[in-house]
């Protein structure tokens, strides 16, 4: 009733949709970087969206299922193989006892989610099963996976084989590859030239971590204003650093920050942003609150349809 880590990956951790109600204690929600993909992987197995999953970067761990179990993969395409043979993503799959899951090569995206029937059975910490790396708590012993680790799961009965329907992750994003943001409270601190540059230049992702992406681009000028005191921030907040560069806060962001908040990525685009990695590029487009809310609801409705089996395409 467990998964063994035969070989550790670069940065694999147990995550879920995040912990609620603890921000005021300094515990951010954390959770999956790409909540959309993680939810799909869970729904493929009939799990609730908040079941604990494995979030993996590339190079990924090599994992062995010790007992038969249903599993699913969603998010980045790292060419998953089961016992050496390529398996499809976005579909309920079946692993026999002793099967080995590996990932042969990165084709697209930055993070892949492995969901398992009824979720990985790790204890709750402060209301969530995700790994809080800074505090060293939650998930599997509060850390990344290591060789020899054992991740427990339940012995759920086999109800189908691997020929179920395939989910279609296209939720109707009208913005293509661009990442949409709404203005932050400190947007006005940017000069008009900097504001124009932000929405016309392509920025490089210099460093991508679970806490935030450090972007590389033209120096963004600002008006000298009085020092900003710490206020709340969120996943997707665009901070203007003293270097004139941007930092986008991600899933493991701290609950408060002291840098100007020039914008916030719309909730519906957090998942798209989460599939960018180092050396990828970001093009920003501004939008308004009404559109942002509308797209979030549209994305949620797409997930609902997957959950209830409507809108699935049939596998070949």
């Amino acid at each position, binding site marked *: 009733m467990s998964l063994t880590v035969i070989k550790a990956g670069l940065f694999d951790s147990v995550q879920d949709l995040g912990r*609620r109600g603890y921000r005021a*204690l300094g515990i951010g929600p954390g959770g999956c970087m790409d909540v959309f993909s993680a939810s799909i992987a869970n729904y493929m197995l009939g799990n609730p969206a908040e079941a604990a999953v494995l979030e993996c970067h590339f190079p990924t761990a090599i994992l062995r299922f010790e007992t038969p179990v249903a599993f699913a993969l969603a998010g980045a395409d790292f060419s998953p193989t089961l016992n050496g043979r390529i398996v499809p993503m976005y579909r309920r799959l079946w692993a026999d006892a002793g099967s080995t899951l590996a990932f042969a090569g990165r084709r697209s995206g930055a993070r892949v989610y492995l969901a398992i029937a009824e979720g990985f059975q790790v204890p709750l910490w*402060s209301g969530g099963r995700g790994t809080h790396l800074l505090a060293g708590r939650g998930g599997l012993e509060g850390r990344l996976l290591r060789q020899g680790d054992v991740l427990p799961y339940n012995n759920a009965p086999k109800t189908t084989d691997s020929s179920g329907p395939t989910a279609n992750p296209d939720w109707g994003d009208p913005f293509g590859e661009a990442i949409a943001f709404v203005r932050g409270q400190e947007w006005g601190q940017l000069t008009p030239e900097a504001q124009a540059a932000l929405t016309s230049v392509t920025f490089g992702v210099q460093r991508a971590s679970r806490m935030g992406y450090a972007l590389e681009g033209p120096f963004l000028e600002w008006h000298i204003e009085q020092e900003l005191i710490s206020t709340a921030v969120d996943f997707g907040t665009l901070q203007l650093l003293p270097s004139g560069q941007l930092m986008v806060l991600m899933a493991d962001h701290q609950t408060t920050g002291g840098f100007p908040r020039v914008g916030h990525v719309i909730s519906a685009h957090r998942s798209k942003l989460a599939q960018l990695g180092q050396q990828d590029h970001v093009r920003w487009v501004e939008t308004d609150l009404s559109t942002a809310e509308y797209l979030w609801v549209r994305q949620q409705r797409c997930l609902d349809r997957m959950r209830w089996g409507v809108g699935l395409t049939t596998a070949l």
Partner: protein
Amino acid sequence: MVYALGDSALTIQLGAGIAPDTHERVMAFAARLRQNMRPEWEELVFAYNSVTLFYNVRKVRVVYPECTAFDTVKRQVEALLDGLEAFTPPEPDLIRLPVLYDGPDLEALSTAKGISPEDLIALHANRPYRVYFLGFLPGFAYMGEVDERLFAPRKKTPVPTRAGSVGIAGRQTGIYPWDSPGGWQIVGRTPALLYDERRAPLPTLLRPGDQVVFYPCTQDEFDSYQSGAV
């Protein structure tokens, strides 16, 4: 002033800077919000002069479809700002914490301030500090204000800092609940557990609005300190 923090939260700013009376308003407003929480509202975050409310956009729009969730929640929150002056926040708790004043930056900070380490300890200990909010790490409490003779800049590069470290940065004092990189000037260590998941009803020792007083302790007292027996 109420403004959007992205598309799923809004911030209510209740004053201009860091000041006890602004913070009193923050505490009062937070208490009022907590008494009037709606099912669509998810959680609150406090900072020096603001409260931020995270809400579920979909749930808000199901109940109030005629405008943006932001406009709805803004209206509801502004209604609770009315008559805030008359609202009395709950009495703060007073918490006394022992500190072994032997921090790695005690000597350097004393020298920089032109006072002796004993004087620095005397200025830091035995005076009440207000807990403004928790952030940065689980249980990390931003407290203030320290005596102006102790104002200290943050370190340019964070260094490994032990759990329990008591530090000063700017006009603030704080305690690191966990081993972590830290930029505050460390003057001592407390044996008290800032974060303990066994503690009820909340795992954090300190809460916004609490008053904290540090008192110097010996190495023996530090070693034999039982967390919870304050």
